[in-house]
């Protein structure tokens, strides 16, 4: 079945891109509504029924705003930096599989833009390119707040990028592939636990990786409680302070598209992607399940923003480097070890298992003891009031 013409693939890709853009617009509406409800407000109500036309009105308003460029700005870089973040965010959707091959209007259509052999790394690579939008935008503004915010943002994004990438290694070990379609196919299998059959979603075998991935994803997209790059109380608007009109909205678009892509990615890697009741019979249901899982993720993002206060910068970096990084490396070694045993490569006598279990329980007990173990961050809070 290699006869899909390129134009058809491109139509699929283009549709995905536009759905993503529309999704982004309605993500802002969704966020405002949910946040408002959580704060006992109504959110947008005036534009259209339940404020549904609000995103369109916002877009038109931003199109009609004056595009200001600071006199000291590095103009060519200032012009193109926002586009970098927008383009890299939107192209990442190419590798997300929305389903297999289906028949639409009597034609076989692949419901994915590109089935890359290195799909998962592709998303990481484009994420790392997105950092340039931040760094170059802040540099080109030649202004204090953007420079500070940009440096912070870049340091934060690169720190969490490692964690994000390493959190996926467990999934790669289990699936034996970097292609998102293979990973998805592997999760369509069923696990039999006695009488019940459950889908082989990787969240079940990689719960630690999933939690780490979720934390890193929130930090990677600069969202609350990790939104220090745009901490408005100290940095005005962070790296995009000097941007206005539609150039500003590219940063805004980029952030939301990144959120959606990273949620789609997480749903595909850990939550079985298009898998769900009835998805093997009708492809529309598969897309529905994928989107439903993504929306749960996005709701979680908003929930976090409504609930948690912002971290301090040293706490933020401390979490990435001192907590998540060792944890994620441990997870890799642990997963590999279990996999070895499961493959029957390694024979472990029973007494070793018992010894290990006792050691783990003892360690847990030690670290949970008040004053013991723990990380350093809370202990230093007294130092803050110094100046």
């Amino acid at each position, binding site marked *: 079945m*290699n006869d899909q013409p*390129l134009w058809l693939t491109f139509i699929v*890709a*283009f549709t995905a*891109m536009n759905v993503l853009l529309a999704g982004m617009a309605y993500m802002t509406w969704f966020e405002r509504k949910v946040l408002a409800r959580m704060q006992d407000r109504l959110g947008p109500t005036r534009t259209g029924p339940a404020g549904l036309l609000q995103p369109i009105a916002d877009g038109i308003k931003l*199109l*009609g*705003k*004056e595009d*200001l*460029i*600071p*006199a*000291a700005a590095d103009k060519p870089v200032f012009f193109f930096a926002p*586009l970098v973040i*927008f383009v890299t965010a*939107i*192209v990442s959707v*190419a590798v997300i599989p929305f389903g*297999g091959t289906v028949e639409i209007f009597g034609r*076989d259509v*692949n419901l994915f*833009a*590109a089935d*890359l*052999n290195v799909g998962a790394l*592709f998303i990481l690579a484009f994420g790392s390119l997105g950092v340039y939008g931040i760094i170059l935008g802040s540099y080109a*503004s*030649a*202004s*204090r*707040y953007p*420079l500070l915010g940009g*440096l912070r943002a870049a340091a934060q994004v*690169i720190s969490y*990028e*490692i964690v994000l990438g390493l959190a996926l*290694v467990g999934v*790669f070990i289990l699936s*034996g592939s*970097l292609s998102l379609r293979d990973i998805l196919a592997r999760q369509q299998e069923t696990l039999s636990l006695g009488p019940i059959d459950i889908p082989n979603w990787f969240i079940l075998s990689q719960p630690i990786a999933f939690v780490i991935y979720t934390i890193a994803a929130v930090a990677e997209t600069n969202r609350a409680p990790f939104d220090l790059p745009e901490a408005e109380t100290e940095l*005005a608007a962070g790296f995009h302070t*000097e941007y206005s*009109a*539609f*150039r500003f909205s*590219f940063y805004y678009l980029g952030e939301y598209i990144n959120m959606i892509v990273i949620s789609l990615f997480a749903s595909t890697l850990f939550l079985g992607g298009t898998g769900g009741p009835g998805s093997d019979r009708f492809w529309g249901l598969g897309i529905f399940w994928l989107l439903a899982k993504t929306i749960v993720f996005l709701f979680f993002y908003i929930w976090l923003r409504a609930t948690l206060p912002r971290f301090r*910068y*040293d706490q933020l*970096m*401390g979490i990435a480097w*001192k907590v998540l*990084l*060792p944890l994620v*490396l441990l997870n*890799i*070694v642990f997963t590999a070890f279990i996999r*070895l045993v499961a493959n029957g*490569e390694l024979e472990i006598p029973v007494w070793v298992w018992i010894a290990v279990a006792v050691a783990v329980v003892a360690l847990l007990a030690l670290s949970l003891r008040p004053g013991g173990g723990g990380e350093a961050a809370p202990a230093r809070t007294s*130092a803050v009031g110094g100046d």
Partner: protein
Amino acid sequence: MPVETQTLGENWLVVGLMLVSAFSMGMLLLTLNKIMAPSKPSAAKAAPYESGMPDIEPVRPSYSPRFYVVAMLFVIFDIEAIFIFPWAVIFDELGTYGFVEMVSFIGLLFVGYIYAWKKGALEWV
């Protein structure tokens, strides 16, 4: 599920086309903005934003060298991650042999990590 593939070239060509179309979409929006928006530049608008304070010194304040250390550590751990990916993919083939290899690899780097921690490279403030 039937196995259907696009060739490697086609896959990447689509990615290239998406890059081009996303870029042109962005340019189109910027052009629209240029047409629709007013343009009344003034000296105050072109000044850097300082929360209403006049700008006092040329902007290039010096920052903490810690950012540099973080970037350096990032490069190193990024390379480590890159080495782990292909290993993870063929883990089942490599078996115990591969496990020992990778544990020693990660172990050695972990020594560096502990050194960095002890030296305070991971501390902020």
